[in-house]
């Protein structure tokens, strides 16, 4: 593999991490969804580049799935949901942006240390790729933890899945079946969570999950 190919793969994976960081501090739902569409687009580019580098044409299908489903259909669908729920003007109070960003930087550092330590014998591209993928997964989890709105939790969960797809395509020789199943699992999770959103909305007039906690008679 030439150094240019490696550098481009590195750049695309790094952009995915950057997009995750952008997701972290979006406090408006529309902005969050737009950044998520960007996130999925970068993923599609990255997967396509991997397909080219590894000369694995089936990865193009994965890239296409990522582009169509994740970058277009799901954000559009979530836009519609937000409009129907009438929460597009809501501003989420994220736990201080600075603090979240610091935590995110810590997570990226952690995943670098872990990955470089446990995969010394692996292919250099796979190593870097896995380190970035783990960062994206951890950042997705961080988004889910710091948000209270169910829609943003869904977005966090899907950016986490993007990290998984990045990891799966970075490893050479992963069969297509697995990638399709990963993509579909995201789709199914999205549908399930979407239905839950409407259910929560019908019952509590809010998609703030704190309403659920109040309903359970929370002691805090």
């Amino acid at each position, binding site marked *: 593999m030439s150094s240019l190919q490696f550098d481009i793969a590195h750049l695309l994976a790094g952009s995915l991490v950057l997009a995750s960081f952008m997701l972290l501090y979006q406090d408006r739902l529309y902005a969050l969804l737009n950044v998520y569409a960007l996130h999925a687009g970068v993923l599609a580019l990255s997967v396509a580049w991997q397909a080219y580098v590894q000369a694995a044409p089936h990865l193009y299908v994965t890239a296409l799935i990522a582009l169509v489903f994740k970058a277009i259909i799901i954000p559009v669908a979530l836009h519609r949901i937000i409009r129907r729920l009438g929460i597009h003007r809501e501003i989420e109070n994220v736990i201080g942006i600075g603090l979240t960003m610091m935590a995110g930087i810590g997570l990226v550092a952690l995943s670098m240390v872990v990955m470089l*330590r446990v995969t010394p014998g692996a292919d250099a591209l796979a190593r870097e790729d896995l380190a970035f993928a783990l960062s994206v997964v951890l950042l997705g989890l961080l988004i889910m933890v710091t948000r209270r709105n169910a829609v943003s939790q869904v977005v966090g969960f899907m950016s986490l899945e993007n990290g998984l797809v990045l990891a799966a395509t970075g490893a050479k020789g992963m069969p297509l079946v697995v990638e399709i199943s990963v993509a579909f699992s995201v789709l199914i999770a999205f549908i399930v969570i979407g239905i839950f959103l409407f259910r929560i909305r019908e019952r509590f007039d809010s998609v703030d999950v704190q309403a659920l906690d109040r309903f359970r008679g929370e002691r805090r």
Partner: protein
Amino acid sequence: MISVALWSVALLLALAPVGIVLSSYPRGSAVLYGACLVVTAALCVTALLHLLDSAHPVLSATLPIGLPWLGAHFRLDALSAFFLVVINLGGAAASLFALGYGAHEESPGRVLPFYPAYLAGMNTVVLANDAFSFLVAWEFMSLTSWALVVSHHREAENIRAGYVYLLMASFGTLVLLLAFGLLASGAGYDFDAIRASHPSAALAGMVVILVLLGAGSKAGVVPLHAWLPLAHPAAPSHVSALMSGVMTKVAVYGFVRIVFDLLPEPEWWWSMVVLLVGGPTATLGVLYALMQRDIKRVLAYSTIENIGIIFTGLGLALAFKAQGLDWVAALAFTAAMLHVFNHALFKSLLFFGAGAVLEATGARDMEKLGGLIHRMPRTAFAMLVGCVAISALPPFNGFVSEWLTFQAILLSPQLPSWGLKLAIPAVGGLLALAAAFAAACFVKLYGISFLGRPRTDVAASAHETDRFSLAAMFALAALCLVAGILPGLFIDALAPVSKAMVGNVMPHQTGLEWLTIVPIAESRSSYNGLLVFLFVALCGTAAASAIHRLASDRLRRAPAWDCGYPDPDPTIQYSASSFSQPIRRVFGSVIFAAREIGEMPPPSSPLPARLKVELHDLIWDALYAPIATIIGFATERINTLQFLTIRRYLTLVFGALIVLLLVVAL
């Protein structure tokens, strides 16, 4: 033969769903108990024929159930045949008793389905030949007996008993699971493979400790006995008889099977552990029994005492076998097995009697009974036989097995190890003390409940029990006498068991003149139950006829001397607590932290003076209560995890992931 045994078990299992249907018919319980009687009697005869077969064949069978790569292995050898006899003799007697007694059950739907299943579970335990089948059958036996314990679930006391029982049974099964896990580490779960393997000494020692905990908690050795006096009395009386008389023996079987059969040659310290558990169990069990007022609870505590005697016998057998004196080991082992059989007889008999009294009066408290010998003469006679037998008085069977145990104790100076030389006589002292207390305990039980004047109206209006119950009691009483005057027959029947487990047998008994039994050699000691019986019978008849001939035989009732107060109230009689007061004062102040509080009203007050006795179960306070407190505290803390928000759960997952990654990274 083994196919007959397995088919009988299958029949008993099939009777369980039939019990659900039958429980809604008025004559249903009689039909079900009759069927159980037939099956258990057939199984008892089959097992007896196998035990008496001079070729001593070992039969085995494998069924394609259970773990797919293992199957269910079953085996019928001398040991399992002997325990099958004990289980099914007890089961048949209990079924016969329940033919009459079961008709008074107010909720038969809670008893009938579980009763045959419980019998099937116990039989499967002794037939199982692999660890998986053994544990499944063991747990099945525990669960079905638990269902029977809580069958009268309206009483809060029974629910608590069931709870404690379930906890202790789970603990016992868990510990046995660990023991089998250690045993199977080199061999697999099949008992044949475990027998052929050679575990290291340390591993075998750990298995012994675990089995003592697991089987001991089921048998009721101190300090794991706490559930037994709660659970046994809570069940219906025929089930109490099975639990006390038979199920504790299944636990003894588990101990014998693993320690004597599956493990290699014993080491001397195993016997030390077993003896130090057995001796105190015997003494403490009977001391607890002496302090009780509830008849069924007295009997349950007395079971603990007898388990102590059996475990002492097993410990002696281990000690002598480890030191190469296998002819003494055979004596001690046979004594223990004979006591297993004897205790199953008289404990079942006594529980039947208690059930008959409970049914006739509605009372289990001795202080509410009295004078029952006039209202229930036949029950009273059968109970008298049971009390004499369990007090180890000749010519009944209890004496024989305890005497044989003491013969083995008297041979302890032949052991080379000094530790055992010193420990065994001490354990013998404890056993002798227990035997004396047992006599006192049953004098109290019989005297307070059956003699004297009735203390309450229910006792005064009691009626004799039905003929099936009486038949069961008299059959067991007759067996107690037969086993007491012809013990040689029983000892010879146990020879193949002893041969298989300790590698030697007691001298052949049946050829000796006058049916004497000889533990080792005639020059040392011998006992002749028949002569003692004839002597007692002759002297008794002669004395009675002499008194009736020479003195007036008119029945004359006169007021007893009552300290000058002509008070006709029957409560001024000796009570259960006043009978045991001397023993309570000597031993109870230390063992039970007993205190007597006298409340004297001021001189002008018309209030009566009161005497209160406070007893504490120190084992419960020191062992069980702290554990319960710790677990309660921990669960209270952990319980808050049940009420977190979704985000906090996510945060917990996230945090755990980060911590794990940090562990990998650093």
